[in-house]
């Protein structure tokens, strides 16, 4: 009896999976993390920093222009300002402790690409692609949330559009859509 139930259940699920995977309307849904906004160890608000106080993205994410990884800033960067500003707030104390002890803050990753995808921030930043193009209006977020698909079709459509009709201020885009652009 149990075996019978297992069979029916697995058959149903297999069918459901098959429908999902082979209907183009749905297959992008698999692995789509849009709306993912995990709780972070520190309630850091991009709205306060990037919008209200107009701190440029690259002040903290200074690696974005230099290499493939934009990087979460080291706690010492936070302390550049927070040595003075709101220095006794509980979250800031956490940061100070991190710098003092050398034990870093463990943030939860929001935007994640598969292991077989190579994305280089510097290439995009150097061409003038706005951070918001991929990460959404981060400057309005109190807690960072994924707002874009980040599926391959989404990447490729932008590469095609920008190459065909470069946005203002961008020239010689020539964004490749070869497999080897991202997969190697």
């Amino acid at each position, binding site marked *: 009896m149990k075996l019978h139930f*297992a*069979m029916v*259940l*697995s*058959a149903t*699920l*297999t069918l*459901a*999976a*098959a429908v*999902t*995977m082979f209907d183009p309307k749905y297959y992008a849904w*698999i*692995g789509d*993390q849009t709306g*993912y906004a*995990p709780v972070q160890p520190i309630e850091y608000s991009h709205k306060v920093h990037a919008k209200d106080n107009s701190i440029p993205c690259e002040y903290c994410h200074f*690696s974005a222009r*230099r*290499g*493939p*990884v934009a*990087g*979460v*800033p*080291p*706690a*010492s*960067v936070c302390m550049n300002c927070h040595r003075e500003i709101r220095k006794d707030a509980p979250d800031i104390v956490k940061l100070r402790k*991190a*710098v003092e*002890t*050398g*034990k*870093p*803050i*463990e*943030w*939860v*990753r929001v935007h*994640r690409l*598969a*292991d*077989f995808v*190579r994305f*280089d921030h*510097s*290439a995009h930043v*150097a*061409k003038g692609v706005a951070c918001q193009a991929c990460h959404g209006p981060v400057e309005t977020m109190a807690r960072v949330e994924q707002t874009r698909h980040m599926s391959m079709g989404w990447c490729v459509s932008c590469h095609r559009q920008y190459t065909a009709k470069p946005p203002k201020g961008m020239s010689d885009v020539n964004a*490749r859509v*070869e*497999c*080897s*652009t991202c*997969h*190697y």
Partner: protein
Amino acid sequence: MGASDAAVGTGKPGGTDDAATSLKRRTFLQIIGASVAAGALSGCRPPREKIIPYAKQPPELTPGVANWYASTCPGCSAACGALVKVMDGRPIKLEGNPDHPLSRGGLCAIGQGAVAGLYDPYRRIGPSREGKPTTWAEADAAISDALSRSRASKRQVALLTGSMSGSATAALVADFMAAFPQARHVIYDPFPCEAVREAHRRAYGVSVVPRYRFDQADLVVAFGADFLGTWLSPVEFTKQWSSKRAASHAARHIQVEARMSLTGTNADERHTLSPSEQADCLAATLMKVVTTLGAATPDLASVKASWTSEVQTVADRLADALVAQRGKRLVVTDLGDAAVQTLAVALNDALGNVGTTVDLERPSRQWQGSDTQLASLVGAMQRGDVEVLIIHGCNPAHSWPRGKEFADAVAKVPCSVATGSVADETTRLTKWHCPSPHALEAWSDAEPASGIHSIGQPVLRPLYRTRSLQDSLLAWSGKRMSFHQYLQEHWRTAVFPKAAKASGDFAAFWDEALERGWVQVEASPTRVGPFRKGVVPSALRQVAGRTKEPNGTEFELYHSVALRDGEAANNPWLQELPDPITKITWGNCACIAPSLATRLGISEGQWIEVGAADGSALAVPAHVQVGQHPGTVSIALGYGRTEAGPIGNGVGVNAGHLAALSGGMRRFHGQARSVAVASNRPAFPFAKTQIHDDLDGRPIVGEADRHAHGSPEEGHDHGHAGHEEERRKANLWGKPIPSDRRWGMVIDLDRCTGCSACVAACDIENNVPAVGPDEVRRSRDMHWMRIDRYFEGDADSPTVRHQPMMCQHCANASCESVCPVLATVHDDQGLNVQVYNRCVGTRYCANNCPYKVRRFNWFDNQAKLAARRLGLNPSVTVRSRGVMEKCSLCIQRIQEARIRSRNEGRDVQDGEVRTACEQSCPADAIVFGDLQDPNSRVARLAKDTRAFSALEELNRQPAIRYLARSKRTEVEA
């Protein structure tokens, strides 16, 4: 990278499907259905991953961007210059330092594999006492106590190490020794060089290993010395000799040897003689040369020749060639016998080589080991004279011929300490094991040649609770300073004043030295006395007077290119690196000539028993090797480890005990008392990567006449006579789609020696896994790059051709036509790319590839062990089971250069992208670049008259072009 360690160790494939095969079909389908559903559901939930930035980020560090540090290769005593690639704080690759005066950018397979030792999961994580973990404080207290006891009792303190050429280390050791009334420092190397030093002591009064200058020589005659493969400083010698040969077509090389060595396969002329005949031949050559030059003394003429006419014929030929050569000459031999070495010294002296090709004034400082000293130390230990024994950087329990005697002697020492970073046969014997860090975790120094000082700098904090020997010596002698401070202090007082720019400030000098990895300073030349002619007749008489067994069989022990002394036996990549000649992986063998095999009825893989004169015997599987001397059995050392770790234990057999101790020195050859088939033991299935050795007349490896350079008509034989022109033009694909670039490579087969450094470099760069011997036997090895080796001609003196083979990146690619899912396609850079995430594993592409360069992941071959994963190259995707892979022409390096150049608003420069194989090649045989750019080096070379493509008649239009190897012709005499 990372073999599934446990699986490799047991010889089992990376995973088994036993469970699946025993299931009923229905149950199987249920499980599959449920798992698909589970997979779909789990796709909805984000995997929770962390981002952990630095609390305080070092300013020089950018995540995802590699930092390079100059250092010294820890692989062997040659101490080549190395650059360490450090990504996100983890060293992931060693490359040759192009700026280094000796190795000039080359790095051998051992050096390439050294980084894997850092992530060896079987390293010691802290000190231990009799195998039980202990603390550094406890170990220090006990050892310091024993040291003070020895001071009181006036018993010996012995430091037994491998060669440590660094001047600061030497000074530190001297300081340490000076504190004890009875102290001795004994140097022991797995590779003995004492006979060379002894011969120079006898002849010139200086006990040195000269610096041999192959780049100065127009004719090299080598007796057994495998100078391109394993002898002394192979990377340095390969750099020298390949550049010399490329510059001058007149540079010639004659090899006299018993086994088919890597060097022998590259010689212009090769003679096979057994080791004892080589000694005779050297003597005969010397006599003939001095007679011809009219320098023979009556003393010399009185020596009676006792050698065979065959030896005399070879000697006459060599003497004629040496005398006829108008340029500079060089004679080298690796025979571990002071008398024989003296003859080589005399020959070099008679030919006026000293000061030109043999540099005695600024000698090599590598390989300072002394077997006689170790023999005397063992005696002292047996008598109970030694209170404290500290062993570092050598493994006599494995490589010393009388390992058992050594072990018993160590047991008699009250306080024995070993400092190896891994457990080995020797560390098991000692009471204390105070592990050193890996060389990439500690400060060190080296002086490979007189006046060339090299620094080894740590590139990460020690992963485990380890301390370097130098730091330990400082601690045990009660000095409160680190070796880093000691090293700087020593350089300030001893090295800096000799430097040309000594007027400046030391801090700047030190920083510059660190940045470059080495400095060259004025070294006072060694005082070389006049040649003492008197040593020659006695040496001659000694060699000539030896009893000869006319039809006896001899044995010869050698170091293999892949493992050498076997110190890195626990490194799966080196175990799986095919021997350049036999193509055997995972083990050693006894090489025997086809004629001997026929005579004794031995077939491939059959176990034979080789008995030495002193009664010791060894059972070893036989490999029938063309080009082998018919009366000599050659066996590689360094195998048969018992305490190397799960990967290296029990791989091959240890032939070390066959070596005889003559006059306290190891001799790696001797008369075989017996060579017989070991009955009732099934033949050993060698794990070979190439099982067909013959070209069968096929036009795969081109050969050109060396002297016909620049004349397109004559010259090379591509061998496609008989292939009609139409067939060559036949094309299924139509015109190739134009691309922005066409990345390609030119491989000069005349320079390539087959040393396999490129194979190891590729493995480490591209996360290529090792799969273990069973899988290699199934031809499932994963090497992206292999070196095909072909034998031609008769079995006694075959011609050998090496051809590096990897994905040819064909314009008309056979693989692309058959892939049902477009997982292998051409991109706009002219590359044939493999898209792992598209691949469904049909293997059609591999079946359709005429070059057989595609590799399929039958299992998840990557390491499950966390330590190994630390060493993966993060720029290259780790391939999973069921996916095809192959050479990408290091696309990660191309992409990195493309992005960098685009960010800077320029084009990629020629030479900006160097593939891993090209970078490591000690012979500079590989050139990479854009074939479409007419000014690139690669495009110019591709137009050379020697250029050809492999299997040209198939019209695949490969992006890899080869330059034909020159025909090896006899040296003019």
